[in-house]
């Protein structure tokens, strides 16, 4: 497949210079490398600027409710395990409104890839604090500065036993494309938190701010070591990007028995004999 195969006809509604463009480019590059047809892919999103991504990629898409991309995506994957399911979501959508689903879908471990456009701000509602906003950041709603402790997505995912935890940066497009491809190829729930500068509302965490701090995780990092993964994820001064943690574990499909069945969507429901079940109640 080529990148152009994933071009959508829908005009893009993001602000010029938005970090989302970098993620869009990386996603298309990863999909071209993956080699699956648009018909074999399902992009699922909730609400927010990140959630518009499925409109801008040529593939099946389900753009559902704010915070609720994960349950819809997990169920679609359970229904047809042949689908490649990718969620594009934001820090507000995934870590705020949908926080409970984030927790439990890591535990559920369906084979889906979750790309979180993490800009540390609410964009679509015009500039309020997000779960990942830095303490002290001033907004219209938080004029005295944010007082809540930031949500730590990577540490949270690690603590919950997520088998693939990565962080990317929208300005490092090729690097991000590799992370996305690795996440898709991982058999289970894969989280890719992506620093995505918001050029309209986040005047603190800008391209310049991130570029000064991010560094690529080197070969010396053992990604199968959870203790060193936790240490990386907790770094605050400099910000590591790359695969923080990766370990194979049985997926939902394996544990639920789905792997031994034909995809649920292909089940023949025309001639189900329910009589034996009634006999059990005789």
């Amino acid at each position, binding site marked *: 497949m080529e990148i152009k195969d994933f071009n959508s006809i*829908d005009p893009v*509604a993001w602000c010029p210079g938005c970090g989302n463009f970098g993620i869009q480019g990386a996603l298309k590059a990863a999909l071209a490398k993956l080699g699956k047809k*648009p*018909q*074999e892919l*399902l992009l*699922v999103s909730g*609400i927010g600027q990140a959630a*518009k991504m499925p*409109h801008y990629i*040529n*593939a*099946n*898409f*389900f*753009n*559902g*409710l704010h915070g*609720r991309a*994960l*349950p*819809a*995506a*997990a*169920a*679609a994957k*359970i*229904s*047809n395990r*042949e*689908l490649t399911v990718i969620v594009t979501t934001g820090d507000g959508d995934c870590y705020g409104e949908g926080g*409970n*689903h984030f*927790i*439990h879908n890591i535990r*559920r471990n369906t084979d889906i890839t979750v790309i979180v456009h993490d800009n540390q701000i609410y964009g679509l509602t015009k500039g309020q604090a997000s779960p990942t906003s830095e303490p002290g950041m001033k907004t219209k709603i938080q004029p005295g500065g944010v007082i809540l402790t930031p949500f730590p997505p990577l540490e949270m995912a690690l603590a919950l036993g997520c088998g693939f935890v990565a962080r990317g940066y929208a300005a490092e497009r090729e690097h991000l494309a590799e992370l996305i491809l690795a996440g898709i190829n991982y058999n289970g729930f894969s989280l890719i938190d992506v620093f995505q500068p918001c050029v309209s509302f986040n005047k603190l965490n800008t391209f310049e701010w991130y570029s000064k701090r991010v560094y690529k995780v080197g070969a010396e990092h053992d990604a199968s070591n959870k203790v060193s993964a936790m240490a990386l994820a907790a770094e605050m001064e400099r910000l590591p990007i790359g695969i923080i943690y990766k370990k194979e574990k049985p997926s939902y499909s394996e544990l*639920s*028995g*789905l792997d031994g*069945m034909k995809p*649920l*969507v292909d*089940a023949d*429901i*025309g001639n*189900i*004999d*329910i*009589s034996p*079940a*009634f*006999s059990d*109640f*005789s």
Partner: protein
Amino acid sequence: MNQEINVRITGEAGQGIVSVGMMLCRMYKDTGRHVFAIQDYMSRIRGGNNYFQIRVADKPVFSPRAKADVIIALDKDAVAVNKSALAEGGLLILDAGKYDIKSLEKGWFSAPIYALAQAAGGPFYANSVALGMFAAMTCGGPEAAYKAIDKEFGGKGAEIVKNNKLAVRKGYDYVVVKIKDCSFSVSGAQHDRGCLLAGNEALALGAIAAGCKFYTAYPMSPSTGIMNTVADYAGKYGIIVEQAEDEIAAVNMAVGASFAGVRAMTASSGGGFALMCEGLSLAAMTETPLVIAVVMRPGPATGFPTRTAQEDLEFVLHAGHGEFARAVYTPGSPEECFIAAKRAFNTAERFQLPALILSDQYLAESFINIKFPDTSAEPPDRGRIFKSGIAPEPGRYEYSPDGVSPRIIPARSGALAVADSDEHGTESHITESAEVRVKMTRKRLHLKLAGLAKEILPPTVVNPGAKIMLCGFGSTLGVMREACAAAKGAGFIHYSQVWPFPEKSTLTALKGAERVLTMENNASGQLARLIRRETGLKPTGSILKYDGRPFTLDEVAAALEEGK
């Protein structure tokens, strides 16, 4: 009145009241009697007072009675709580020594229930001792009780079965020797033995028969029984049952699965359904089939978790923000629950919208013997699904005269499946167009509703135009049927589907009636308001019960008598 007796077994939670109740039902059914059994239990795991009351008759029965002819109380509190339910001339058996009860009131009889249980293996066999006593007093022999023991405990090992049968024997022999002058027997009738079903189980079997392959829910009384039954059969029928982290997840998972092409459903009670409302609206907007069962209990908030109500009729009719078409089924019996589930899946897929099934604790958990239903009724109809090739112009949501456009299943046709919760054009991309908005609203609301209105399940009408006409929906079918059969000049209309509302059949059935009374398990007469709003006819009154308990036949018969 038919020949009948009413028996009640009562004790605290944890004493196996449900277990012995089910065995009693089987014992009576297998000896040719008809049964109708209600469960009354508290929201706790141990202690309190629970009872299981069975109406045993030589003719089919569909409703509970207010009093019991024979009560066996397995603890002291049960005596105090249940003594007022003893019928005139009835017998209440208790263990006075064990409960430290000094004086016996009229109709009470003390038996050494716990000494007999101890002789069979321990105090937890008290419920099987009671089973044996009922077998002696009402059934003429212990064999059917033994058979019920085999069915209930067969999977738990020979020792357990042996001890339980011994307990039955001890209870049986005690009564035969000590209580000579009791005659609470009902003759066995000739009926095909059929099965013993409650609404929740029938609804689950209907969903399985309909081809539901993904069931997801968060446990909530009294809807959990549906999930239990589906889970029992999941392996055999290739179903995935997923316990969701909350009801919001459940409804969004059901929508996601349905979008991917699988028949999926969820269920809850009022509180959980409240959390699902945005998801309901999502199904409507994305035109994704969705089946939700709402098994009502009294609210507001946590309310009465284990009791019954019909308080959420208006809630379910209006749930979800925005305007869209939906179907709401209100089955009145286990047979109707089975059909409603199959019907709901067909409606949801054919019209691509939410189909709701409204039940309640009383219907969900009351057992009745029924004939094996016709399982061929309502065969699966998946509606319009795009089979192969490039997606038709102008896209997934093309306008059509009936509002229904072909669904696209991801990765199964060559076309792309696309859905958006924002207002969208025919190709499913976000739009701000006023013109598109109007057309899409017409599609989702007016056109689909018009289609649904052409195939409303007809209400059950008995004695149309009678002097007094009762109107009910859902679980009140049985009690209306029996009360009206016994009263002169009374008839009823029962709705198995309340939305779209069957306006014409309502007006026809009620024409000429002097008094039109709705019968509802709520405090405000929600059905009365619905009838008035949809037909212009104002019911003359309502028989309302909102104490968390179902209507008894006695109450409705008395109300009809008063109504004359």
